[in-house]
């Protein structure tokens, strides 16, 4: 930094010298050099301004991203609030009149409302049982011998979900090892 600060001063002096009475003593080369120096300085200044602007732009984008992701979360949460309200209603009414059957019906209704909301959001379950295990979509918790072909999913512990073509959460599954012959592991 100190270097750079000195630079403009030096040039300034030269510039002044040029403009004053000594004009006739400076050769065209010197004049050219002085001009080039000035040009370089103006480029450095512009470069720094651009760089600083870029830094500030990045900071602003970062702030914007934070704001946007907050807003997206807000919107998403707002969409789920009616479900929460309905659940609360269900429990309130259960407390009041202890009508178990209507409570169960209510919960069923809320569940299908939930299901519908997830569908609206593009969420779809990942097929698991009977399919071949695929680590892109499934996570193996257990692997046991079974009559099913090796690498087939024989039980789903927790359902997985896609959204569009992205895996929101892989299915947690039990995978078949096939039938292992008693003596040897593999042919």
């Amino acid at each position, binding site marked *: 930094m100190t270097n750079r600060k000195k630079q403009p001063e030096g040039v300034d002096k030269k510039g002044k010298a040029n403009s004053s009475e000594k004009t006739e003593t400076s050769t065209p080369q010197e004049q050219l050099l002085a001009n080039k120096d000035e040009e370089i300085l103006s480029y450095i200044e512009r470069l720094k301004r651009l760089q600083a602007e870029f830094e*500030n732009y990045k900071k602003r984008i970062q702030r914007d991203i934070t704001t946007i992701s907050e807003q997206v979360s807000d919107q998403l949460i707002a969409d789920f609030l009616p479900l929460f309200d309905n659940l609360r209603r269900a429990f309130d009414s259960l407390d009041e009149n202890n009508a178990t059957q209507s409570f169960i019906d209510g919960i069923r209704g809320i569940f299908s409302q939930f299901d519908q909301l997830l569908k609206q959001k593009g969420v779809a379950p990942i097929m698991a049982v009977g399919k071949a*295990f695929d680590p892109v979509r*499934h996570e193996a918790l*257990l692997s046991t011998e079974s009559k099913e072909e090796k690498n087939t999913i024989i039980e789903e512990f927790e359902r997985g979900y896609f959204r569009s073509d992205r895996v929101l959460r892989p299915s947690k599954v039990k995978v078949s090892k096939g039938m292992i012959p008693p003596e040897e592991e593999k042919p």
Partner: protein
Amino acid sequence: MREKIIGIDLGTTNSCVAVLEGGAPEVITNTEGERTTPSVIAFTDSNERLVGRLAKRQAITNPKRTIASIKRQMGTDHSVKIERDGKVEQYTPEQLSAMILQKLKKDAENHLGGKIKKAVITVPAYFNDSQRQATKDAGKIAGLEVMRIINEPTAASLAYGLDKSKEQTILVYDLGGGTFDVSILEIGDGVFEVIATDGDTHLGGDDFDQRIIDWLVDEFRKDSGIDLRKDASAMQRLKDAAEAAKMELSSRKETTIHLPYITADASGPKHLEKKLTRARFEHMIDDMLQRTSSTVEATMREAKKSAKDIDQVVLVGGSTRIPKVQEMIASHIPGKINQEINPDEVVAQGAAIQGGVLAGEVDEIVLLDVTPLTLSIETLGGVVTPLIERNTTIPTEKSKTFTTAGDNQSSVEIHVLQGERKMAADNKSLGKFQLVGLPPAPRGIPQIDVTFNIDTDGILHVTAKDKATGKSSSITIKESSHLDESEIEAMRREAETHAEEDSKKAKDVEARNQADQLVYSVEKSLSELGEKVSQEERGKIEDQLRSVKDKLSQDASADELRQAMEELSKHAQRLAEQAYKQTATEGSETSSDQEQKTDKEENDGDYVDAEYEEDN
């Protein structure tokens, strides 16, 4: 464009890759959308090679051909035998590490849109020559020229820019998922030297999770008599819940672990619901934290350093987010902890910075300063209006347009301030100047552009210019950056502690300004409308005007003022409507005039001495 050199933190459990972009390190997201990649490799039946999250997911179905924690074997002649189609293939730790590096390289190439050929890779400080060489070879196998191998604690210190200050001693406390390291470094002239290092290669966050799982299992057995350990699905849910609870307890004092339908017996389904307090969790892991604590002490003894010799402490690894860990370190070395950078990413970021230096990307030109504090001007009511926010990179220029607060005001005073407080009086005054010779005009009409320009040397030039006459006036402030670190820090702290009362004060002022503006415009309308307003209506409005004015003179609270204003503006609105109806029949000229006025009322609602727009 210069060739990019990526920085890679090749970890035991997780790895991370970063690159310098525009002078700052950016962590690269992998194809699975995660910022760190599990250091796991697998060979599948279909001869496919999996690395990272996918390899981890299939580990249970394929234990013999899934390899984790290969880093522990680096530099040994250990080899991993993989059986495939009846043949046995052997892989060295270098080859396997190379597969992880290859994935990171590919993810970086996807992100940057070009070939990556060079990298800086980090290793633990305790790695010996053959382990370092093995890491370098792994890079080569992956198609990367390893420009430098640097120590993980050095990388973390680089990420915090600690190489830029004077000679100092740094303690790096690294508690990851499965390993724990402490290093003490000395730095001078940008050269780092590790003077002592110690650790435990089998201690980390996974052990903490296990303690929570054990506790949950025991509690559940006490309550229900069922042993969840035999239930793989339940155990997986417990594992996830334990990790989530651990994380939650870093920001909250208490969390509840809900696992409905965790299992079932003859009597029906069973649910698990347990409250876990932070204190209880801390108690569970206390012996492990004590172990790290004694390691810190031993390392300091070995380095022949006491707490006061340590200038900086750097935290690395996700587990350092646990408040008790920070507390414990602070009890050894108070007040010197650096923890602003994500501890999972700090090592990769430091490696990326080293990469940037080697690529020649970090030179003087890109090392620009930032303004440490906000620069503002004082506006009506003694509140500040910021022009340049703190942490803005310089050189920079910002303008805003202001106006007058009074009718026929012939001059404005520009008071330049520095600081984070909301009231002018609480900030540091940098200078004042006048812009004179404004032509007579009603308040709110003149447009005065105020421009703040900070040049490369940190010198602030402030210019005020009247748009109508082109008259301008300016001031140059040289000492704006002359506050030292401690002064800046003190001002920032003060602003934080006063934030609440300041914003109340600013709200009061804002309300007063709004009230003042409302009174002015209603009075103006009344006089302009003259006879058009019924006697009755005029009386009512005048009463309310008086009430607002009284409140103004009595320094009433913002709430009281707002109430009085609301009443007044209800009637004033009716007034405007009434006038509008009449004028509509009289001709369009006056009607548009009236429209403009109400428009203005809304615009100027916030401040009297208001900004119109932001130019920049």
